């Protein structure tokens, strides 16, 4: 597509960025106006993302809606945007979830009532501005086809996230407000440091990439398209060791963000200490940049090294799946439980990516989207529950379904989506990842399948301990059911989980061609069935 056409991708990212600035500028006295402004902007962004999805032609070129402008010419850094089907899916997911996150967090940043001297300043409009800022940066990351451009936003989104975690954390802390504040700071800094370390290593690898391209092509470049073309033409051949080093540099950053065992320990802290909508922002949106980047940059830039590292990465992914699930079973804190469940799910995503089959990678891409929806449903309802009772401890609940059946029902649906019940969307992605893994690595596929049993355990234990049983705590007796605003957040998510579970074709149609391209990057084809003639005769 010509560069002269309307820069749709830029617009999709700039709108929330401008919205963030405008929201932040709303006077403190009119914080409701700030909330509505943020919501409207996020809906506008959703409309633009819908436009992106419709404008994308699944049968067309690999990267579409491309924009390309010189930026820092001296270093070959260009402002290059473009999306393949995977990018479209991720942008759509991001734009879709943000309005729900904003609506769910409607009162999360209201001024505190307590007047204690160490009370923190919490500008309501800042909360929503930061969310929009994260959205803008995430969208740019999904659309960037220039490595350096990607890197900048990959790193920059840490700043608004840091303030969201540390500044607007969950106040439901069993150990009291002061200890809570301490825990929040710890979580925010841990998040920042982990990701910064990854980012710094990646920066070194980015520079290394520049050096290699400059060395071999005469002019250094960060453009995915130029690198791919040079590679295809045989002009670019990285030395094996260099390629592996650069790959590891990129991969480390993405594996921290994803997060992969054993680099996962920041996530339970971050998700536990932030409010539920921010926790959803972390795991459903921001972390997906990590797995997305593995698909696009690790495989696209370093195909040989990817193949070389595959056995180790598959092992780490399997550990993540089982370990995350076992840890989830052992949690006493609702939000930390969901965090460990997410670690298990990220294991599935990474497994699917590195299985290097169309089912594995297609499944992994769908998994990113569906996990976003299912975690949002489960975590946001959990957040509504926590905000009622003021505690995150599972043991502080019990019998909730008796007093708040709608809340319990939606929580159960979110949980069933998390355990990938057939009929709901996550089943499709999980099954595809498993079958795609099994067809190349049968043993790994079987080990990962154990994860589906463990998922049933942690989800149903959580449901049993919080929702069922007699109502024997006075705080539970007075628990109100979901309010209209809350139901308006959850109901569409559940409807989407069901719809996409029954009819995922609109999404697979977009994703499939992109996965084929990615597989051709790494020169892999699906394993043939043992009896191919059966397939042919079908």
């Amino acid at each position, binding site marked *: 597509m010509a560069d002269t056409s309307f820069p749709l991708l830029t617009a999709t990212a700039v709108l929330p960025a401008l919205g963030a600035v405008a929201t932040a500028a709303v006077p403190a006295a009119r914080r409701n106006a700030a909330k509505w402004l943020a919501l409207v902007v996020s809906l506008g962004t959703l409309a633009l993302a819908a436009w992106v999805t419709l404008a994308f032609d699944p049968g067309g070129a690999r990267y579409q809606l491309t924009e390309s402008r010189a930026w820092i010419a001296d270093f070959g850094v260009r402002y290059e945007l473009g999306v393949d089907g995977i990018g479209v899916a991720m942008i759509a997911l991001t734009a879709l979830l943000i309005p729900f996150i904003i609506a769910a967090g409607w009162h999360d940043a209201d001024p505190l009532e307590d007047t204690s001297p160490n009370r923190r300043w919490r500008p309501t409009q800042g909360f929503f501005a930061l969310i929009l800022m994260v959205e803008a940066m995430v969208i740019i990351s999904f659309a960037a086809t220039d490595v350096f451009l990607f890197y900048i936003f990959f790193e920059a989104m840490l700043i608004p996230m840091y303030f969201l975690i540390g500044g607007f954390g969950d106040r439901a802390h069993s150990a009291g407000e002061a200890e809570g504040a301490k825990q929040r700071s710890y979580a925010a800094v*841990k998040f920042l440091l982990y990701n910064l370390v990854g980012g710094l290593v990646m920066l070194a690898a980015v520079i290394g990439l520049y050096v290699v391209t400059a060395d071999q092509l005469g002019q250094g470049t960060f453009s995915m398209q130029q690198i791919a073309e040079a590679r295809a033409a045989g002009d670019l051949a990285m030395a094996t060791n260099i390629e592996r080093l650069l790959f590891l540099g990129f991969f480390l950053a993405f594996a921290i963000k994803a997060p992969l065992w054993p680099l996962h320990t920041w996530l339970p802290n971050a998700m536990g200490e932030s409010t539920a909508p921010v926790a959803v922002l972390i795991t459903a949106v921001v972390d997906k940049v990590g797995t997305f980047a593995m698909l696009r940059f690790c495989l696209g830039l370093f195909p040989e090294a990817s193949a070389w590292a595959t056995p180790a990465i598959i092992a780490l992914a399997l550990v993540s799946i089982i370990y995350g699930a076992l840890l989830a079973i052992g949690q006493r804190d609702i939000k930390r439980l969901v965090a460990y469940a997410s670690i298990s799910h990220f294991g599935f995503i990474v497994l699917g990516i590195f299985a290097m089959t169309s089912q594995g990678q297609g499944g992994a891409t769908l998994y990113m989207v569906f996990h976003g929806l299912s975690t949002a449903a489960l975590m946001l309802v959990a957040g509504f529950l926590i905000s009622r009772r003021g505690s995150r401890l599972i043991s502080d609940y019990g019998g909730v379904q008796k007093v708040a059946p709608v809340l319990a029902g939606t929580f159960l649906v979110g949980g069933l989506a998390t355990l990938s019940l057939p009929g709901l969307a996550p089943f499709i992605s999980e099954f595809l990842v498993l079958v795609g893994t099994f067809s190349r690595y049968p043993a790994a596929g079987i080990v990962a399948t154990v994860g589906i049993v463990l998922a049933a355990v942690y989800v149903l234990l959580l449901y049993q301990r919080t929702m069922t049983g007699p109502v024997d705590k006075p705080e539970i007796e007075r628990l109100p059911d979901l309010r209209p605003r809350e139901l308006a957040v959850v109901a569409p998510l559940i409807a989407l989980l069901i719809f996409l579970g029954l009819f995922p074709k609109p999404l697979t149609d977009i994703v499939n061609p992109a996965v084929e391209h990615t597989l051709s990057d790494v020169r892999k084809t699906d394993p043939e069935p043992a009896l191919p003639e059966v397939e042919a005769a079908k």
Partner: protein
Amino acid sequence: MIGLLVAAPLLGAAVLLCGGRHLNRTGHWLGTVLAGVSFILAAVLFVDMLGRPGDDRALHQHLYSWVPVGGFQADIAFQLDQLSMTFVLLITGVGTLIHLYSVGYMEHDERRRRFFGYLNLFLAAMLLLVLADNFLLLYVGWEGVGLASYLLIGFWQHKPSAATAAKKAFVVNRVGDAGLAIAIFLMFTTFGTFAFGPVLANAEEATQATLTGIGLMLLLAACGKSAQVPLQSWLGDAMEGPTPVSALIHAATMVTAGVYLITRSGAIFNAAPDAQTAVVVVGAVTLLFGAIVGCAKDDIKKALAGSTMSQIGYMVLAAGLGPIGYAFAIMHLVTHGFFKAGLFLGAGSVMHGMNDEVDMRKYGGLRKYMPVTFVTFGLGYLAIIGFPGLSGFFSKDAIIEAAFAKGGTQGWVLGAVTLLGAAITAYYMTRVMLLTFFGEKRWQPDKNGNEPHPHESPKTMVIPMAVLAFGSVFAGGLFTSNDAFVNWLKPVTSFEHGHPPIGVAAITTLTVVMLLIGVGAAWLQYGRRPVPVVAPRGSLVTRAARRDLLQDDFNHVVLVRGGEHLTRSLVYVDNKLVDGAVNGTAAAFGGLSGRMRRVQNGFARSYAVSMFGGAALLVAVTLLMRAV
């Protein structure tokens, strides 16, 4: 048309579960009517099917492409052949009756609307299971019935025991589900597809190892759903659910899905003798296991649950025999559907009249107070023990003959096991009968001090019991006259006549003798002398049987306690070691831990900002350096 079968109850579930309180007064009738609509549709399709010749009876309906990714092509598509039709009639027929029964049974439950929503959901999922034309869609129904079962076992969620039982059922079933998933993976990597048609038609071409693998994984799935050893532990606890649920899901339909799966995949098992051997072993072991457990339970529903396990053991065993057994497995499945559902509904009727008491030692002499329940339950009883002329006699006898016909030592062993099972069946069922309806009344006031006033149940409950009793009496005879049932299924499951090493008449005589021994033993113990209200301590075997032969205790100690220790220690490891190791490694490179410590002293923000500033500076410097 086929899709409508599933759609009707699905619509009911959606309306009843999402609808508001204004449906409370009519919802149960909506659910019942939609179940009835499904049944009428099924009947119409059945008549239509009978009009076509045997080899041309299967109907196919392709709705849409569901998950197309590369070579992986999953469709939403249905197949209605004789095997599916049999199940559809059973599911919708018994299902409708049990909806009707529930109208009365759940009358005083404030959440009755939701109960009917779950029942409708179950029907939809179960119909999907038997109508799917590929294994992945079958899997959707498979887990769908698991969900409905979970929701219904735990229907009285305020009872911790019900919530625990529901979770246990789902988790144990998930183990089986994992087996089904792996079987599908294997089919996909072998055949490139998992649709019934191409997989089953080409099964013989795959290697022996692959087929055995698929067969064993399918067996694992069947063990979970059909409560076969070693995944049987959930069924007894599942009796926490309301009794209509036990009748429909945990006796007549869902628990027989494993038998459906094995029969449906017959082509795979036929070509994998090792897997078949595993199937008959599982069936034979469960047959005895369930029967022994059934002898020791004082809870009427748990005694019946043991019996269900045992009877499904018969079916699984028959299905493992191959073409000489498939049709008999399904025949016993259908007759069992009638008499076991009838027995459970009878048990529910008794509980209804006895303030929800389930301990049979506190019943006694009820035949005078609940005559209709006594008669219908009694007919079901005669049917299950295989009283000559009633349904169970024909279907069980056929399995015993087929077991002998397996041939060789295996045939003798299996024949002996099935005969022994027949005696134990007669024993525990006579025990139930005597404890409940005969002898002196042993009623006691419940914990609120209310003396029970046993009375006959309302019409909505009695009519379904009568219909099922009718089926229990006549179905077997109808099915076996002119081999009607075998001929009906033959085009799908294929059929070979088994040739038992001893005469058929001799086997029948033996069966009747075993029956009389069982009945006599029970009468000596429970009919001739008064029954103590408190169970005697019993022998070691009795005590073990009361505890489900300790298998559950094993699970509890090894899996539950072991799992708790494992997760707890992992939580510790994660918090201390993994976190510490990663932080420590980072510290070695960048003094991270020092920073972390200061963070806790309150310098968080300044440090984070300076850290980020450092990074930004680094970027800037790098760029500058390159520029120079």
